[in-house]
């Protein structure tokens, strides 16, 4: 048997305890790394979901009241024009036009492509996607169309169909959501390809 004249641990006890300790530590380290990874991915997915929803709900809200809608698929741009009333000369009022523009900056599918929101035609970009601390996104699809009546094949009057797809740079997940909005007071509606 072992000669135990000094008390405490002997070599055999270390030989058993040390691998167990290493195994335990390794297991805990793996699990915690996996957890941090899952947490990071979840934050990035949350940002992705939130940005798609935000852009679409803004678009629908703006489209609803527009007088003039011009959509362009080549370099995705969506222009809404509203008629505003402003004070004219003495005892009169005149109307003026106010614009809201959604424009894709950076090109479809490119790194860092984002959707800008502008109130005027000259450059004053206000990005409404991307640049998020928890997850950068890129725009992979931003498409407008006018749906057709299934029976007669005629385009449905004043309906704008929007498809938006965003990809997360971190998880490389994609979210694609389509929706449509009816614009009751729209007088001019054009889609260019």
């Amino acid at each position, binding site marked *: 048997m072992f000669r135990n004249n000094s*008390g*405490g641990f002997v070599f055999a006890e270390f030989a058993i305890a040390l691998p167990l300790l290493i195994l335990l530590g390794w297991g*805990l380290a793996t699990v915690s790394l996996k957890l941090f990874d899952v947490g990071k991915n979840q934050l990035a997915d949350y940002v992705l979901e939130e940005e798609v929803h935000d852009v679409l709900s803004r678009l629908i809200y703006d489209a609803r009241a527009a007088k003039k809608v011009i959509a362009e698929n080549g370099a995705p741009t969506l222009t809404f024009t509203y008629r505003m009333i402003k004070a004219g000369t003495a005892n009169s009022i005149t109307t003026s036009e106010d614009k809201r523009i959604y424009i894709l900056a950076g090109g479809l599918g490119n790194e860092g492509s984002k959707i800008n929101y502008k109130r005027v035609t000259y450059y004053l970009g206000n990005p409404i996607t991307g640049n998020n601390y928890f997850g950068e996104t890129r725009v992979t699809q931003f498409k407008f169309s006018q749906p057709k009546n299934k029976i007669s094949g005629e385009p449905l009057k004043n309906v704008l169909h929007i498809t938006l797809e965003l990809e997360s740079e971190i998880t490389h997940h994609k979210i694609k959501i*389509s929706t*449509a*909005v*009816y614009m009751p007071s729209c007088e001019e509606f054009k889609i260019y390809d």
Partner: protein
Amino acid sequence: MGRLNNERGFMLLNVIFLTLITSFAAMLLMNAMPRVRNPQSVLKLTAIHLANEQLAMIESKAADGELDLNYLGKPEDLTTENFSQKVPTTFNVTSTDKPNGNLHSVTVKVEWTANGREDFIELERTIRVVPK
């Protein structure tokens, strides 16, 4: 048993170590619990926008004097691959209406099944059918 006298210090240390390790593991597991991915939220968002699409189509047709409760949206919008690991989810859209003169309260119900769980959303909008 007298020999254990020498190891009392190690036994106390073991109690402390085991407590620390157990609490660390418990902390990790409790963090993991709410992080189990739930795809239903993304599908719900997609379904809400699909129901809005259907309502927009119904509104456009109603402005021309006809209330059509069939599915009027694009056929490709009925399937989605959002967070479903390449397994498409199919939506089922049904519309019902409660007429009150020219005003119809139209309810659009979107149903789907994901991971063996059924779910649905219902959206309602008041739509005026313009007489021809």
